[in-house]
């Protein structure tokens, strides 16, 4: 029997887990990022993101689970441009998770902040609470013109109007890798076995994905880099993604 104090302590842990089974993490090297937006396109293809059209894009209703933010430093002509790929930070203390009245978003055993489309009723509170603004709402039910509907990924749900969605770290690929690992009589997924679409498509390998619970993983080593920082860490959201800052010579 646990005491009430112990229960409370367990309750205050992110996702109520003592330890995540896997802790999927990404590092993004801003020095390598060229802002080519290949990751954006890859994500669009992999995750059945709708093409909202010009008008709705102008209304700022586009859906891009990963986007490239541009920042300018200095005054013309001495100007420098930097890119930050912004996607769901899979925060361990995610503000969006506490906000949802129906538990449509929760923390899973892999340290992922997951969104259950079927449960979402569209209060959009999670998007308000998210400091990174990486949650996207389906303002309409989108359709794909022929023959684009042929390229929809069968492993990913197509969302209807009134549902919130966001980056899942390509959870369908994680599931497949875990299934394969199980079938091969292996106990753990090997490093590099799961590659989300954005990481796969990055020509400069600025994005690295892996399990930070595995100390030998490439991502765990990169996280130790002295250039590493987390975006808006001061808000206490404990984001999973580590950015490696750009070094100006």
């Amino acid at each position, binding site marked *: 029997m646990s005491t009430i104090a112990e229960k409370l302590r367990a309750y205050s842990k992110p996702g109520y887990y003592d330890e995540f089974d896997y802790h999927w993490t990404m590092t993004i090297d801003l020095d390598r990022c060229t802002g080519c937006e290949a990751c954006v396109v890859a994500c669009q293809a992999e995750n059945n993101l709708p093409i909202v059209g010009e008008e709705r894009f102008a209304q700022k209703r586009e859906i891009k689970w990963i986007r490239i933010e541009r920042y300018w430093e200095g005054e013309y002509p001495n100007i420098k441009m930097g890119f930050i790929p912004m996607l769901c930070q899979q925060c361990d203390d995610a503000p969006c998770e506490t906000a949802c009245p129906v538990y449509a978003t929760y923390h899973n055993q892999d340290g992922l902040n997951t969104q259950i489309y079927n449960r979402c*009723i569209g209060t959009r*509170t999670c998007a308000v609470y998210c400091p990174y603004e990486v949650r996207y709402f389906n303002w309409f039910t989108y359709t794909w013109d022929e023959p684009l509907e042929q390229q929809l990924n069968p492993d990913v749900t197509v969302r209807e109007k009134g549902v*919130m969605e966001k980056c899942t770290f390509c959870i369908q690929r994680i599931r497949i890798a875990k299934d394969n690992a199980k079938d091969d009589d292996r106990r753990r997924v090997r490093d590099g076995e799961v590659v989300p679409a954005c990481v796969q498509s990055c020509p400069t390998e600025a994005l690295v994905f892996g399990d930070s619970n595995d100390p030998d993983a490439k991502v765990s080593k990169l996280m130790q880099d002295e250039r590493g920082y987390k975006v808006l860490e001061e808000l206490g959201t404990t984001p999973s993604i580590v950015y490696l800052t750009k070094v100006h010579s």
Partner: protein
Amino acid sequence: MSQEENKSLFDHGQPTYAEVNEDILSVMLETGPKYWMLLGTMASIAGIFFFMPWFYQLIVGVGAAGMNRNAVWGSYLSNFIFWIGLSHSGTLLSAVLHITNSPWRKAIYRSAEAMTLFSLMTAALFVMVHLGRVWYVHWSFPIPNQMGLWPNFRSPLMFDVMAITTYLTASSIFIYMGSVPDFAAVRDASTGLRRRLYTIFSFGWRGTAREWHTLGWAYTFFAVLVIPLAVSVHSIVSWDFALSAVPGFHHTIFAPYFVCGAIYSGTAGIVTVMYCLRKFLGFERYIGQVHLDSLGKLLITLSLIWSYINVLELFSTWYGGTSFELEALSFRLTGFYAPAYWEMILFCAFVPMLMLTKKIRWSWNKMLVISILINIGMLTERFVIVATSQPRKFLPGAFGYYVPSWIEISITIGSFAIFATLFLIFIKWVPAISLYEVKETLKPLRRDA
């Protein structure tokens, strides 16, 4: 209560018991074509301006409104807060004044409580309009289901669901309980089906000493219960905002700020409704200068508290000195919606100060204008909070803007018609002024009186 005080409650001399019954019940029992026309107009406006755009929005999706990626909350939510705020006048004020034994409460509390009820219903409608998939709204209630899923009790929206349903239930019981002796009076004054109906409504009230005693303590019990409930409701609504880290929302002052603002706009709402009751139902005899004067003084006090909290909010933001908060503040004071902000300051902080002069406080027409201005200001206040903070949170790369679409404007107009429709139905079903409590304020009957 002294004789002077007693006299001053009635501008045109004290009515007799029979006159009270006649005056107030005639509004219920005699219905002219004007009433039906007004009811028809209001119901049509509600249908055309509220329900038809909503239906359209249900078909195409919430994208019909003007919200976008940066501002996922829009005018639906600010209207929701406004209506919840308006609901705070009635039951809360009625309960507080009942406990403090203020005689001027007795003529106005029934309508004020009805206001509470109907604005809560309108507010609940706005939640429905706001939701992306309103057809699943029942998932926010703890209904057992095959998935074993419960609502998330850590969510401030869940607190909202709980608080508002509790408040709605308690307010309904409160207004019904206070009306039981009046239902009996309606029963006694009517025949046929209405008589049978009101026999059921009045629970067979006979007016024995024991019944009056039971009603008395039950009513006081509920009054005491309702006060913390009402305060908690708007505190919880404020936590929808304050529990987020969004600059401009993340203030500890938000709970008292919202409660104060709610009572403020609610009291102004009472003045507006009282004006209409006097004008259209002929209650001049019962709602008089004393009521107007007291409400005016209350409004001045609330306005001062409201202004104080506003200054405090500005000060603590400036003193805190976080860059995000300062950015949000400067956008609110000087950005795109700055005119709306300064309009709110003008209407809610400066205009009410006109009431300091007795000349304005005692004039029904001027008070009507002021009360409407205050509520316009309060409507803007909620809009400013929602529309200036949330499209500009932390990452400048994701800064945006928000402008309401015609559907949102239409639904906002329609919501007032819904409120009016409900109120018009109410005055035909429940005596709009409490018969027995007005009689309590009359001087004892004397043969020579």
